[in-house]
């Protein structure tokens, strides 16, 4: 996806006392894109969002909305929060308790001087978009969590902001509501095409909602890319381990012509074969880790066709039936405690001998 840049952060830093909440962060967000800041607790996501909103002022760096300079520490430029034309959904929703739903949603319009019928039609349309028709007369404290969340959303989009900011909007909802709201928000954002910055530490939310994801750790960017890119080709072990599950096997790398070979340390005599492209940054003869996503492992009871390039013998240590599949803990050689899942159609029990088939495309090899 290409397009004009709607939001640009250049070398933004912010610290609180000795804590570096955001550390020399640079980002570009395209117009109409949904960009997610993802990372573990305390990595600086909220702080980054608050810098964009103007609720924190950075110690260094520049912030641009398109070609409008918003903040420049060097040049002494600072556009105050209320002049940035933003929409924001807070984690606590921040619905004003002394106003009705209508008054809450109409607020961004009235501070912009919109009056009369136009306010009414725009508020009603925003409430319709979030599925709250007919609730406009309710007093804010009479709403359920999910409804409050939607009022917050309607209030954040009613004035067609140039940028929409969402800080963990679902974290106060129960799991089921969270799933519903995720789908609704996706539909809404697709329809509105507002440039959005979304903060979460939930990878499912990030993967399902975003056009691109920024994985952050310790105040800096680990990797930026589409959800698929991040999942399939993580640039750092941090991203690899943060997104999805991985099994790690350690070994020694050797060159075998067309494919690379890895002799596994703890599984004597077994070799895993992989494409050269999977082993960037490693050297032949060096120690490596092989990372495999559990869903890329095909667990078989027999070595049947033996068609797969990589096929490891394993023993089931424990098998848990969880409804739609089995969760199995298997041992390969001296390597134990590997978690894989197997289909319901192949009953598993402790002590079974199985084969783990792994496609050579599904391996990632990392230097160690």
């Amino acid at each position, binding site marked *: 996806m290409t397009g004009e840049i709607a939001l640009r952060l250049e070398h933004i830093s912010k610290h609180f006392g000795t804590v570096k909440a955001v550390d020399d962060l640079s980002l570009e967000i395209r117009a109409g894109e949904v960009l997610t800041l993802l990372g573990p607790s305390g990595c600086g996501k909220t702080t980054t969002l*608050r810098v964009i909103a103007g609720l924190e002022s950075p110690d260094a760096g520049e912030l641009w909305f398109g070609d409008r300079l918003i903040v420049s520490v060097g040049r002494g430029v600072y556009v105050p*929060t209320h002049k940035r034309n933003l929409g924001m959904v807070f984690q606590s929703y921040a619905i004003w308790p002394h106003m009705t739903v209508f008054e809450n949603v109409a607020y961004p319009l009235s*501070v912009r001087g919109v009056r009369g019928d136009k306010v009414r039609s725009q508020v009603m349309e925003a409430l319709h978009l979030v599925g709250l028709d007919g609730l406009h007369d309710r007093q804010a404290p009479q709403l359920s969590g999910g409804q409050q969340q939607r009022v917050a959303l309607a209030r954040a989009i009613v004035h067609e902001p140039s940028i929409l900011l969402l800080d963990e909007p679902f974290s106060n909802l129960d799991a089921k509501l969270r799933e519903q709201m995720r789908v609704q928000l996706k539909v809404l954002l697709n329809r509105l095409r507002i440039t959005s910055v979304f903060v979460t530490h939930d990878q499912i939310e990030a993967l399902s909602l975003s056009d691109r994801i920024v994985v952050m750790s310790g105040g800096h960017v680990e990797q930026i890319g589409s959800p698929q890119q991040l999942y399939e080709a993580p640039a750092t072990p941090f991203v690899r381990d943060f997104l999805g599950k991985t099994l790690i096997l350690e070994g020694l790398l050797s060159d075998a012509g067309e494919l690379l070979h890895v002799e596994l340390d703890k599984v004597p005599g077994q070799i895993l074969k992989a494409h050269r492209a999977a082993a960037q940054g490693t050297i032949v003869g060096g120690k490596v880790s092989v990372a495999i996503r559990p869903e890329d492992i095909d667990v078989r009871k027999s070595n049947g066709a033996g068609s797969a390039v990589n096929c490891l013998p394993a023993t089931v240590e424990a098998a848990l039936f969880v409804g739609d599949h089995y969760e199995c803990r298997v041992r390969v050689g001296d390597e134990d405690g590997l978690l894989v899942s197997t289909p319901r159609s192949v009953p598993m029990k402790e002590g079974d001998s199985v084969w783990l088939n792994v496609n050579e495309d599904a391996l990632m090899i990392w230097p160690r």
Partner: protein
Amino acid sequence: MAEIALPYPARRRSWLPADLGYWIVLGVVLLVVLLPVTLIIVNSFETAQPGQPVSYSLQGWTTALTDSALLKAIFNTLKLVLARQLVAFPVAVVLAWILARTDIPGSQWLEFLFWVAFFLPALPVTLGWIMLLDPQYGLINQALKLLPFIHASPFNIYSFWGIVWAHFAGGTLAIKVMLLTPAFRNLDSSLEEASNVLGASPFRTFIKVVVPVMTPVLTVVLLLSTIFSLQSFEVEAVLGFPIRFFVFSTQIYFLLQQQPPLFASAMALSTVVLAAMVPLIFVQRWASGRRRFTTITSHFKGHKMRLRRWRWPVFGLVLGVAVMITLVPFTFLVLGTFMRLFGFFNLANPWTTAHWTQVLHDPLFTRSVTNTLLLGGGTVVCALTLCTLVAYIVMRTKFAARTVLDFASWLPATFPGIILGLGLLWLFLGTPILRPLYGTIALLIIATVVASMTTTVQMLKGNFSQLGFELEEAARVEGGSWLQAFRKVLLPILMPTLLMVGALSFISAARNVSTVALLATSGTRPLSLLQLDMMVQGSYEGAAVVGVIVVLMTTGVALVARLIGLRTAIAH
């Protein structure tokens, strides 16, 4: 194991004496709280002097309701309260917001200065302001008259607005800032931030979001400080007497200074005021009991607004206000003690330490110091004992009449000190077995205990409600009487609060003027009244010396209390 079956009957046996104790506490509270007021109401119809044969008539009421002076006093009271609140309330709301919600430097210290201002006794502060704003020698007036285009003194402390100012710079502003700042601190910051992000300027956010969201709290504080300001006496006494400006409390005092004292009129006037004030306390309780939506769960951090380039100017402004209501009057009070003639800086040799020597060697002064210390100490002991019992019974027992007790502990908040004093005076002069107590410090102690009862009980109740029942029950199950449980378990936990509350009772007793004004005799006169008497006689220099000593005594105790409070806050 057999012993385990015993506690049930054992508890049954201890039930009766404990309950009896509760009734005794209730009786004492009703006696000191309700009886004086009842006597006032009854005796507003009694036209005979104390000691003479009883005769009832409506004469007191006719006088009270037709005498234009009395009606004027009530009107003046209302006018004064309204002016004070209208000036102080908006300023206090803004100050509290700044202290609690912005990144102003040193907010803790600034808040502390307002705290100090609240504890500064009103009389010494007023004296400091007289030095600055007296129409003849007031320093500010003299300085302004040096300007070419100002010829007459622009300010006069002896005026309606002078009284408003003395109150504003005394407690009126400080108490509001003190109560509002913690409330603003509990406001969920995202409510403000949401408004700001969605396009409202900080000012608009303040008007449209912060103030409406805080309305319940603001109402409570406004009512509370209105109740307080209705009780004021000494500032009006000092600044109002010279210009014949009376409010109801000074009017009552004035009626009783007549020969013979006009008791019936004073009581009728008191009854009218009480009838107006008791509903206020109900409104106040109702308002504070309503659900508040402003407090936050600990999950959301209280982000503070960035003042950016306004940070230091705002700091300067707030510091200016804080210093103006603390250091400025105190400094000039102290200066006044060293002046040959109070306020006259242009004498050939204006400075002297003679007043200090004179006051410190005056036996009247020494006796007053003893009286104040006895009064303060006695109040602490009695208030702590009685109020701890009341709070305990209300919060921790199933005593049948505990709501009555609770209500009775609320009532004194509505009694203007002068009326409470009048009621107690009547009670102690009119009841033969109590009469020997008249002219002793014990009478003053009873008065100050009742005067500070509401706040003391409230603070203790807050503390009892935070303690788990288990602690105490555990101690009782271990085998022990109620008294042992109270002493061994509750008391140590309550100790920090008790120290704090004790300090507050000492301060309010030591600075009290209005409640004790009618009860003290020349032998029991405390420092606060000595200062008032000296001021009324025009001996401002001596009064300033006494004022400085009262200030040092009260703020010293307040500081110690604050330090203890901080230490225990840290320890928890």
